[in-house]
């Protein structure tokens, strides 16, 4: 049979262990503050290609704009006009995140890491050729600046792909790495 002191000791022990457990739960920090909205830092909402001729005149702009990034809102693609036949256009690509109150210039980020980035231009249609004209520190193409050469009138599709190739860039398209941008534009040469 259990002695009375044993019973008391057992009960006391039970209380001690319960207290220890309660303490352990108590020290567990309670619910913190409400979280703040995320400041998405790597979103690209906008790609602009400005095509200008040496002769001046209104440049043609190709624009891809997706206000909500990966969200369900559909992107808007605009081509401001047609390209003239048998001309050389100077293409300038800009990238930005316009979802912030102060738009973020992504072009700068790409230019700073030019050795890791490469724009690839794939044209469907024989009346247009696009080539990157700028070079990185290793004399490999980048593509932020490009040359667009038109020949006869007709339709063409230009796929612009930005490849992120840290440490593996060879200047070949598509090469290794991941895709940061992949956008198609339908252009008309007349």
């Amino acid at each position: 049979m259990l002695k009375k002191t044993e019973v008391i000791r057992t009960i006391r022990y039970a209380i001690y262990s319960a207290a220890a457990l309660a303490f352990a739960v108590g020290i567990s920090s309670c619910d913190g503050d409400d979280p703040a909205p995320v400041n998405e830092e790597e979103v690209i909402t906008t790609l602009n290609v400005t095509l200008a001729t040496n002769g001046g005149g209104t440049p043609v702009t190709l624009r891809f704009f997706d206000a909500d990034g990966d969200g369900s809102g559909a992107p808007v693609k605009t081509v401001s006009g047609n390209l003239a036949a048998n001309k050389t256009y100077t293409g300038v690509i800009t990238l930005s995140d316009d979802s912030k109150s102060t738009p973020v210039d992504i072009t700068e980020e790409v230019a700073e890491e030019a050795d890791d980035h490469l724009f690839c231009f794939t044209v469907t249609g024989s009346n247009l050729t696009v080539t990157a004209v700028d070079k990185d520190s290793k004399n490999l193409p980048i593509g932020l600046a490009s040359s667009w050469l038109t020949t006869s009138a007709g339709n063409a599709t230009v796929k612009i792909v930005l490849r992120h190739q840290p440490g593996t860039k060879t200047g070949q398209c598509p090469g290794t790495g991941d895709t940061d941008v992949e956008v198609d534009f339908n252009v008309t040469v007349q």
Partner: protein
Amino acid sequence: MIRFSIFLFFVLLAGSASRAQSCNEVLRGIVTNEQDQTLPGATITIDAGAASISSDDGSFTFTGLCQGRVVLTVEYVGFEKHIQTVSLPVKRTITIRLKSLTTELEGVVVEGDRRMNAVSQTTSLLSKKELESLHGRPLGESLKEIPGVSAIQTGPSIFKPVIHGLHSQRILILNNGIRQEGQQWGIEHAPEVDPYIASSLEVVKGAETVRYGYDAIGGVIIVNPPALHEVENLGGEINVGFMSNNRMGVISAMLEGHIAKNDKLSWRLQTSAKKGGDYHAAKYNLSNTGTQEFNFSGALGFKDAHRGFEVYVSSFNTTLGILRAAHTGNLQDIQTSIESGRPWYVQDFSYTIENPKQRINHQLLKLKSYFDVKNFGRINLLYGGQYNERKEFDIRRSGRSDRPALSMSLFSNVLDVSLDHEKGEHSGSIGINSTLKFNKNDTDLTGITPLIPNYNQASAGLFVLEKLRRNRWTFEAGGRYDYQYLEVLTFNATKELVKPSFDFNFFSGTVGVAYKISQQWRYISNFGISSRPPHVSELYSEGLHHGTGSIEEGLMRPSNDVLTDQSLIRKEMSKKWINTLQFGGENLTMDFSVYYNRMDNYVFIRPYETRLTIRGYFPVFRFDQTDAVLMGSDFGLKWDINNRFTYATKVSYVHATDVKNDDKLIFIPPALFDNSVTLNFPNVDALEGLHLTVSAPYTFQQTRAPRAVYPEDIPNDTSNKVFDLAPAPEGFVMLNASVGFDIPIGEKELAISLSGENLLNKSYRNYMNRLRYFADDTGRNFIVRLSYNFSNH
């Protein structure tokens, strides 16, 4: 290396021929209490190696023993440990009568952790000896040795256990008695458990929700460390391993003892570390698949006749590289990888772990206490505090690669109170489990919207589980009620904070029976109904899942909307019936199970639409619910043909169907057929237990994989039916071999094993590996393992 092992093998073979000694002795016994009532569920260990659990009638059998003296240790919580030396051969059945620790408490016998599992459940065990031959492998990979358990892999180092086709948030891992609270929801999130702490791994293949709660709907993995209070003096263990494939080194050490002369107070310290570089497929390096791990734990326990207290702390820390070539920006990148058939990024071997990588830290504090109450039973109190930190690093622009792309912390508290009682043929357990969890994302650090939002969760469950033993029958029944409060903190499309909260009430029930047909045959059957509310990841996931190149939307997050109405949430319910027939003969053991699991409102993800973004098209997967049936069978057999040869085979098959949509389920393990032959050699002077095992597991092709839609075809696919990005790979057979032996050093033995995996250096891809779109699985691998145990039990 191979030449060396062959040479060694012949040297050993030549030596062994000189002196033959038979190793086909059988030891049969029965475990009883002082009143000669049999005790099922006692643990019987031979020479701290082979282990067995006494069956329903308290009996146990060991086969394939060598002549000579063996030390038999019998343990059962609530009883004094029994150690006995037996000289083999022994023809009669030995009776082991355990002395109760609670002799004053007449008629009250308590039961321990082990017996908390249902007797009618189908369980499988990896013993200490088996675990030794798997040292160095991650937990999920080790568990693949059990029929019916497979693993879903993300590359060569991330393994997630799959039990009868279910995984992630449907499987509970019980680490040293504490439910593991990590980020179980992600397929690429491996369990944060150091396998070196375990002296055995146990898998419960039925729904064990009544005892453990809703996350055990698909089964339970129990990581059992050795009990404290086992050693007489200072004891310990050292394990060292080397792996050729990824040039990995692993070391683990353990020390245990008593404080001063007081054997009521004992302690244990344990640590393990590993460092490995890039794995290697048959034809190329798998660049950036290195691993680093450092773990430690400490335990302090007090125990006397009627009570005990234990403090346990553990720390798990790992950095895992993710195959560089598997990092993709969009669908076209995945298409290119599938077409090329070879990873685009292959560099020379390196130990350096670059991005993408995962860094995981998991800390645990456990407090456990129990005490016996007269004429009542035993009360157990258990607290577990866990802090899980998960950081995933990606390849990012403008120096952001140093900042994690995902950084979340989960702080959880578990408090369990249970009462175990036993009177005559009737025993049972009543208890309360409660948990409190806080999950937070550090988005200031990441600058990326997290895939799953912050949440706070509180839950409590009340269960009753009762057993009745009568002659050859054991009946079991249990019920459970759970309450869960969930508060989610997420943002809607206009970046306003939304805080939906829910109250879930749900029930589980189980009935089972175990019947001893004869001395050798046993039949067990269990039927369980379990339910669970969907996990936060299934309700509120939102965003791009980088590993899969897809956008995921939770059940309550259709198209940037945030739903908060609880009536939209349906609980997942499983009705599983599992039947097992076991045979335990002198030279043959066999285990055959058949199961049928009907899951209502089964949560899965299905393709919903294709979305155009600035990075091109992405498939949008939306969580959905359907009705599924998973049925299958497992078979395991071990036959000691004679004193030299042992043959073992394992078969597993799962057949899974989405019955509502008449469709297949993705990532269901393909059938497996594994055969092995072991050749046992007689003992030579300095070598004991020499054996050579050759195994050839055959993995079938998954013929019931979902249809394949290549990434480039996704934008044109509008059927919304489940698809895979590539067809299921062909079946493959592997050739593995191992040689093991013991060298006595003083009183103890140094166990040495040399093994080779994928000896033919076969190129293959595994359906269950999510990186199979990008690279082959691992090639040939040689492993050396040394294990020295100097515990004085």
